[in-house]
């Protein structure tokens, strides 16, 4: 009986205390007609050794490619110490820190995490995490609607340069509350929000404006102008940012004259492995004035009965377990363990380490784009890009070219054909890529274009 410690002697003794003839009789409240028959799909048990071999056989075929895909999930080096410590039993198998006295490890760590995120975003308060970047955007939209009492429209402008899956997720989560997400087109020449398109809403009641930085195409948005537009039009400004890039890019709190109201994004680049898309974590930072409308858990520093400082979950009156149908969100479990890893990751990398990672990723992507020019490969957009770039291949359809590259073990990028640019590929070369890796990309693409 895997994981069950009971011996027959103990079972007998326990049943005697209960006064039941057998375990089966403990289920006598369940109507007989409802009782399950044998399971059909669940196979017989395997030992850890057997499952281990099975899982190795599952993991092996998905491994071994040289990856140049980004598109919202980025390959970065994670120090070995990070997950070694995060998976220590005391972090790994702990519950949500409701009993503060028995959870100071997790609570202090989250307080440190909150401090780090406010530092990166330039805002005043961070929650303890949301699920991922996409759902964090949805929560930010809901929060903005609650906050913006001057606006009645429940209409939010979302640029087409926001990650398409983020837009889809936000729509799925907010639409039942009568909130409309309006797509704001980009200027196809430069790859960022078209100021003319924005100007079309000058006279409208807009609850919030979403601004990605860098945007889905890797292009840097003119965040100052967009932020100032929002402030001038009584719209809240929701920033969607890659937190790693904030080591070197202007933080949302400093955008424009007033800064962003809410910054969200995905913490994955800060210590979470790619892992097929999760678990990552969403983060959310905002102004202190907005804290009571912020969803998710929050840790605060307080003092105990002896006056000794320590940490507790605080402002829980926002949350579902207290406020039920009037809560800011239904979120309960969030992404604690990934936050644990990410906090350790940020502590080890530090400001200089993260800046080096960001700079190396910037430099590698730019170097790769340059190396590809001789093949007739050009950036789709003229706008400045950071560590990801949309490249137009000298073919009508990029998909078969990517397939041929994959057959050689090189994942050449995200197919922009999925969202309407059939000849284009979104390419990312992080600090994990060497000179030889970049050259391998060039050589593989050259072969794929020829064949």
């Amino acid at each position, binding site marked *: 009986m895997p*994981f*069950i410690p009971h011996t027959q002697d103990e*079972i007998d003794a326990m049943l005697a*205390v209960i006064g039941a003839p057998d*375990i089966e009789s*403990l289920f*006598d*409240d369940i109507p007989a007609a*409802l009782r*399950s028959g044998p*399971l059909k799909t*669940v196979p017989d048990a395997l030992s850890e050794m057997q499952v281990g071999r099975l*899982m*190795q056989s599952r*993991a092996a*075929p*998905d491994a071994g490619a040289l990856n140049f*895909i980004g598109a*919202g*999930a980025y390959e970065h080096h994670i120090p070995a110490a990070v997950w070694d410590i995060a998976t220590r039993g005391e972090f790994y198998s*702990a*519950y949500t*820190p409701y009993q503060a006295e*028995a959870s100071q490890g997790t609570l202090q*760590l989250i307080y440190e995490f909150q*401090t780090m995120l406010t530092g*990166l975003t*330039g805002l005043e308060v961070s929650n*303890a995490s949301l699920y991922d*970047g*996409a759902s964090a955007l949805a929560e930010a939209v809901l929060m903005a609607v609650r906050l913006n009492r001057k606006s009645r429209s429940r209409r939010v402008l979302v640029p087409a340069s926001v990650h398409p899956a983020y837009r889809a997720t936000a729509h799925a*989560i907010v639409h039942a509350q*009568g909130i409309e997400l309006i797509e704001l087109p980009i200027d196809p020449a430069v790859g960022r929000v078209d100021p003319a398109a924005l100007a079309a809403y000058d006279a409208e009641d807009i609850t919030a404006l979403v601004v990605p930085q860098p945007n889905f195409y890797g292009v840097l948005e003119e965040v100052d102008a967009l932020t100032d537009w929002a402030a001038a039009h009584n719209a809240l400004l929701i920033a969607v940012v890659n937190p790693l890039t904030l080591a*070197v890019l*202007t*933080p949302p709190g400093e955008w424009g004259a007033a800064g962003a109201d809410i910054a969200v994004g995905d913490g994955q680049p800060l210590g979470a*492995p790619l*892992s*097929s898309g*999760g678990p990552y974590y969403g983060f959310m930072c905002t102004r*202190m004035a907005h804290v009571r409308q912020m969803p998710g*858990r929050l840790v605060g520093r307080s*003092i105990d*009965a002896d006056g000794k400082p320590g940490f*507790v979950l*605080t*402002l829980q009156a926002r949350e579902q377990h*207290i406020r039920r149908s009037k809560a800011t969100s*239904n979120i*309960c*479990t969030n992404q604690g363990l990934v936050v*644990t890893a990410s906090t350790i990751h940020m502590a*080890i990398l530090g*400001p200089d380490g993260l800046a*080096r*990672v960001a700079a190396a990723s910037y*430099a590698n992507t730019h170097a790769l784009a340059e190396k590809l020019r001789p093949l007739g490969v050009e950036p789709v957009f003229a706008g*400045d890009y950071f560590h990801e770039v949309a490249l137009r291949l000298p073919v009508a359809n990029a998909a078969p070219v990517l397939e041929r590259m994959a057959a050689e073990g090189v*994942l050449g990028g995200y197919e922009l054909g999925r969202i309407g640019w059939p000849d284009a590929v979104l390419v990312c070369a992080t*600090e994990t890529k060497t000179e030889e890796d970049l050259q391998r990309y060039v050589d593989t693409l050259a072969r794929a274009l020829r064949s």
Partner: protein
Amino acid sequence: MLIFEHSKPQRRAAAQAPLTHASMNGLPERFRRTSATGLPEVSELQAVRHYTRLSQKNFSIDTQFYPLGSCTMKYNPRGANAMAMLPGFLGRHPYAPEAFSQGILSTLFELQQMLEDVTGMRGVSLTPMAGAQGEFAGVAMIRAYHAARGDTARTEIIVPDAAHGTNPATATMCGYAVREIPTDADGDVDLAALRLAVGPHTAGIMLTNPSTLGVFDRRIKEIAGLVHEAGGLLYYDGANLNAILGKVRPGDMGFDVIHMNLHKTFSTPHGGGGPGAGAVGVSQRLLPFLPVPLVAHEGERYRLLDEQDRPQSIGRLSAFMGNVGVLLRAYVYMRMLGREGMSRVADFATLNANYLAKRLAAAGFTLAYPQRRATHEFIVTLKREARETGVTAMDYAKRLLDFGIHAPTTYFPLLVPECLLIEPTETEAKEALDGFVDAMAAIRAEAASDPAKIKGAPYTQPNRRFDEVRAAREPDVRWRPAV
């Protein structure tokens, strides 16, 4: 000491970032950060030491008994972690092409099937990232179902008063009004009240069975009949699935949709507050509405189905495909338990709970529902103790920490005064349960002789009891350097 207090300008963990600082010549000045991030500057050893020591300040399953009702704090097999962390799984990009995806997709497909099997549902989507997101998906599907039928009058979700807070919060997020109904004296849904509540405005009902009161609602078929007759659907909150795994299936009880907390029933780690996974299962009529992506098996290949394949889907709840690493751990756990292991979970979770309940009752504690069979959890009410000695459920909870035992869930469900909701789980040995009884009895004796001592507990933890009011009144939610 905070990590920031170990920081010194220009200190670095030099092995962990590129050795040189690459140029970003082309980056225009206006995009460049000029302010400090405030991140700590520490050595690798300092970070390792700091966080290793912090970890030691936590209670956890790996170090303590954790009889936390409604949370199913069972052993998280280390093997499941090791297998989920295989480099092939960790390194795969979510947009990797199919050729580099068959291993993970086949695994997730099998997980979908196994979860359908144990819940009696017709389809499962793995994408929700926690129980609450599973709830959202479930209620959104109920909404989509009525909408697809043009049935727009249904504006209410019925929720029993014993429900988890996420239930009403979810209904609100989905644009529904919440109608609360009471519980009867036996801990079951008050059928008379339900009859009054259901009607053409009823979109559905959200139930847990066994309920958070630790009892199995014997009239579940009757409830299902009432709601279905009124045109509503039944939502099953899977928080308590551990109690009935392999014994009775929500699908067979008449539920239309269920979320499962894989981090409870299927033993993926709680991680200090996640990541969880809240897979949803549905009956035939809700199949078209499942959130995407789903994994399909077509001939020899596995592939992801997206919005284009599933036009009626409620859509996408995360950027990619949910908490895959968590799903892998649940898969490994299910394979290690196997067919027969599933019902053993319910067997021994229930045996442990009933044994513990009997022993606590024998030790003089009051069970909230002494006339009922306990399921995988049960409630002790300390109302009498609180009245007689002033020692409350919270005081018991804090004092238990000094005995090296995590507190049970306190003050939930809300309708039982001074309650402790106790769930030992199947992975704890009889000795752990006996130790809990001994600790409770010792506290009871202390409460009689020296109640002030208990009020001052805990004494053995890094901190004594906190001033939570002050924390909320003057929120200190980030560290700032002394100027």
